[in-house]
């Protein structure tokens, strides 16, 4: 049994252990996290037998890399999607994107983009897990029940533990999260939307700014409680906010935090960034200057937060090749709406092999299981190392992408 860092959600819990014996699926210790357990069930020791394939036929890694390089060499506008990898993978992907003028988007950017748009338009108010644990005395969760997607969330915030003074959680727009309710020393309550989410947040903003506004007693009480707290933490999950304009809600939540900050203290935490979403976004940003949904074109870098959604590009048939990276989760389909005729290269968990119709399929190691790597925790500040716990014989994404890039250069030289 070894200390382990779980890569299967952006909480990156690192005070758990894993029994990764030679046979069977690895066993988790120190947590009952259903998300981790479900993910681990996909890591039986059969991975080592996984083979790359080209056009559905088993191929050597070398042949698969060669085929991938030819797909990219023939493409005029490739899309690099999925991008479920670690920092090293994202670095390699960016170099390859430069070599073939690709557009970059992540499978989970639907959950990241509202926050990014808000940041670009208005800025951000942010706090981190240790700050919440040591500082917060009130948590207001907006429009989600965090434990659904992040089962260990409350534990990571120290909710109800001996160190934390956090004993009060308010759920706005959802019923009380049963996982929070189960913590004995904590009081949880729910405040329903008053109208809809937009109206509720607008009203709370007005109340906290002490402007005259019509409001329900419940909202008035919540606003007073927020203004009276020493340190409020606002929690939201952009991917689960209601309606089609999550960015507007995130903007309103940030405004609320900044308003409270004029008199007392508040911080915000967005729950997003699984499967290397934050690693991809942060790495691309520091390398290029621009975040996800950026194209590395011959005419220059172009950031298009709407137009460069992978879903949209695929639906519009706007790209002529697809490189899809999915090194964590075998349950999600690879590029669900990609046209069947689109030349596709998939670097993915071996379990994808049976279902993927990719022209080139290369099974890759998962960071934190078969490979070491680095991922960003969901608060966006801490990079956590994830360690290889067993050798499944699979290459890492960075390694494969670098080899495709090297092969692509040779293919180009040969064709001149």
């Amino acid at each position, binding site marked *: 049994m070894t200390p382990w*860092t779980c890569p299967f959600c952006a909480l990156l819990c690192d005070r758990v252990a894993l029994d990764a014996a030679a046979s069977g699926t690895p066993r988790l210790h120190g947590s009952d996290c259903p998300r981790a357990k479900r993910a681990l069930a996909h890591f039986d020791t059969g991975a080592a037998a996984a083979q790359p394939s080209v056009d559905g036929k088993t191929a050597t890694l070398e042949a698969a890399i060669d085929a991938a390089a030819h797909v990219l060499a023939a493409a005029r506008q490739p899309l690099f999607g999925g991008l479920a990898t670690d920092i090293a993978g994202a670095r390699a992907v960016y170099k390859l994107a430069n070599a073939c003028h690709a557009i970059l988007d992540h499978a989970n950017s639907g959950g990241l983009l509202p926050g990014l748009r808000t940041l670009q338009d208005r800025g951000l*108010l942010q706090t981190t897990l*240790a700050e919440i644990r040591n500082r917060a005395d009130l948590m207001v969760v907006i429009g989600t029940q965090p434990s659904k997607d992040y089962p260990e969330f409350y534990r990571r915030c120290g909710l109800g533990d001996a160190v934390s003074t956090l004993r009060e959680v308010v759920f706005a727009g959802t019923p009380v999260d049963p996982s929070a309710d189960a913590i004995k020393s904590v009081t949880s309550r729910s405040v329903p939307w008053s109208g809809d989410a937009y109206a509720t947040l607008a009203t709370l903003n007005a109340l906290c700014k002490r402007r005259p506004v019509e409001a329900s007693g419940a909202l008035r009480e919540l606003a007073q409680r927020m203004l009276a707290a020493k340190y409020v933490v606002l929690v939201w999950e952009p991917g689960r906010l209601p309606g089609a304009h999550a960015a507007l809600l995130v903007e309103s939540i940030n405004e609320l935090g900044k308003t409270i900050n004029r008199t007392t203290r508040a911080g915000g935490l967005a729950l997003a960034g699984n499967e290397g979403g934050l690693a991809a976004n942060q790495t691309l940003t520091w390398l290029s*200057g621009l975040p996800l949904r950026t194209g590395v074109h011959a005419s220059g870098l172009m*950031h298009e937060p709407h137009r460069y959604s992978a879903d949209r590009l695929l639906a519009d048939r706007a790209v002529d090749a697809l490189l899809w990276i999915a090194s964590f989760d075998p349950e999600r389909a690879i590029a669900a709406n990609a046209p069947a005729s689109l030349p596709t290269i998939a670097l993915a968990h071996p379990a994808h092999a049976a279902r993927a119709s990719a022209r080139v399929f290369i099974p890759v190691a998962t960071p934190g299981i078969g490979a070491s790597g680095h991922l960003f925790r969901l608060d966006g500040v*801490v990079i*956590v190392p994830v360690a290889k716990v067993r050798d499944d014989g699979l290459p890492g994404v960075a390694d494969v992408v670098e080899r495709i890039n090297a092969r692509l250069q040779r293919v180009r030289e040969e064709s001149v």
Partner: protein
Amino acid sequence: MTTLRIRGGRIFDPTNDENGVAREICVRDGRIVAPFPAGMPVDHEVDAHGAIVLAGGIDMHSHIGGGKVNLARMLLPEDHRGAAPSDNPLELASCGRCAPGTLRAGYRYAEMGYTAAFEPAMLPSNARQAHFEMGDTPIIDHGAYALLGNDDLFLQMLARGEPFERVRDYVGWTINASKALGVKVVNPGGISAFKFNQRALDVDQQHVHYGVTPRSVLHTLARALLELGVPHPLHIHSSNLGVAGNIASTLATIDALGGLPGHLTHVQFHSYGTEGPKKFSSAARTLAQAVNANRNVSVDVGQIIFGQTVTASGDTMRQVANSDLASPRKWVAADIECDAGCGVVPFRYREASYVNALQWAIGLELFLLVDDPWRIVLTTDHPNGGPFTSYPHLIRLLMDRSFRAEQLAKLHPDVAAQADLAQIKRELSLYEIAILTRAAPARLLGLKDRGHLGVGAAADIAIYRDQPDREAMFATPLCVFKDGELVARDGRITAVPAGGVHFVEPDYDRSIERELEDYSDKYLALAFRHAMIGKDELCNCCNRGGRLLPTQCRATETSSAG
């Protein structure tokens, strides 16, 4: 084995007292060596007639990597729009003016003749990101100063009155864990105090929760670094940044050092008086006198440059206070991991603004009024005062009095008419510029084989054509060598080696780790086994195989100052 000879140039190497000396520079395998015998064939030869030869530039305070820099990039897509792609196949795409991508930062620094830059505000909890970003900054060497003095543990130790030696061990451990070259304190205690809703904290005021004063934070950290033998003295972002009248805090900060070495950073932002009709005046002369009188103190300036930029700082207390001045109107603030915080506020310095014009004049006054060039370093606090790409412009302002007067005349009329700057005749020489941009920062950081052109030095060399327009001259060197390799010629990148990372490894009592582990388990959100960045991790993961450049600590001494 590769050899290089640079002949015909005039050498400005203040470390070795060479002021315009005509001699050859010879290089073997990336190091400067004794002159080769006449006629010895070499692999590369550069004709530097009509040019001057300097060591590569060293920027000792430039926000080039880490969370707040990346937030600044994300905050300002407009800073990154419309960038023409480079036609140089050696460059990967990267854009941004005041918050450039790491790739672009590396290319532009090297192109300008700079071969090292140092990230001054690395939060230990964010150290991996800082190292990853610096590792992705090509060509130039780099390093960072770890932030301390606002972390709950340090303040608790001080509040509990723990023995100084334990605090010193904790400082040593933090440097080692984060692979830092030094330690920076930002608004001592103030970032933490803001988490408890304290909105101001002067040098002798008490932290509302821990009861400690910035004075004690400053003295403890400065003494710890001295006793650990860390070459770079405590890097200090003083209390009350940007506040009218903050010269009193800055003088109190110097006083708090009690004679211990300290480096006051971006002092332009800390040299404000309250005189005149606008209750905002230059205190540059007062600060310069204090620096001249206190030889334990060095400074860098943080000159402002007119135009759009973004301010990125650990000082959440001051950044939030200034957030209403954000231009464009958007900003970021974060409380971080019981460690520190960050605030990112875009800002546009305007010539027509009285305050901004005065800030510009104060910076230049400081450059010109501090007597000893070895204790003042050229910075814009990139990007806080302006982007590093404005250094050639700044050098011209310092070297060319008539150019300076022309610029001053364009500013807010009250500043143009009344600024002390108008009366200052001093023009810095090439020799002094070489001190401010190379020799002094290398000495202040303890980098013995950098910042000079003596035998044994790394062959980081910049060759500039001697032109009357110093801005044009310093913008586009004839040749730039990094460790003996030609990396730029005439403003075009010619090679993209990985830069090395400078850090120190002070000795400390390892038994402190048990206390730190207990603290971490109890309060923090990251397992203690992840607190230390390993050397292999630093080299292979963060720095992409770039070299590790450990800097020697001084023989450990015990100060009598405690």
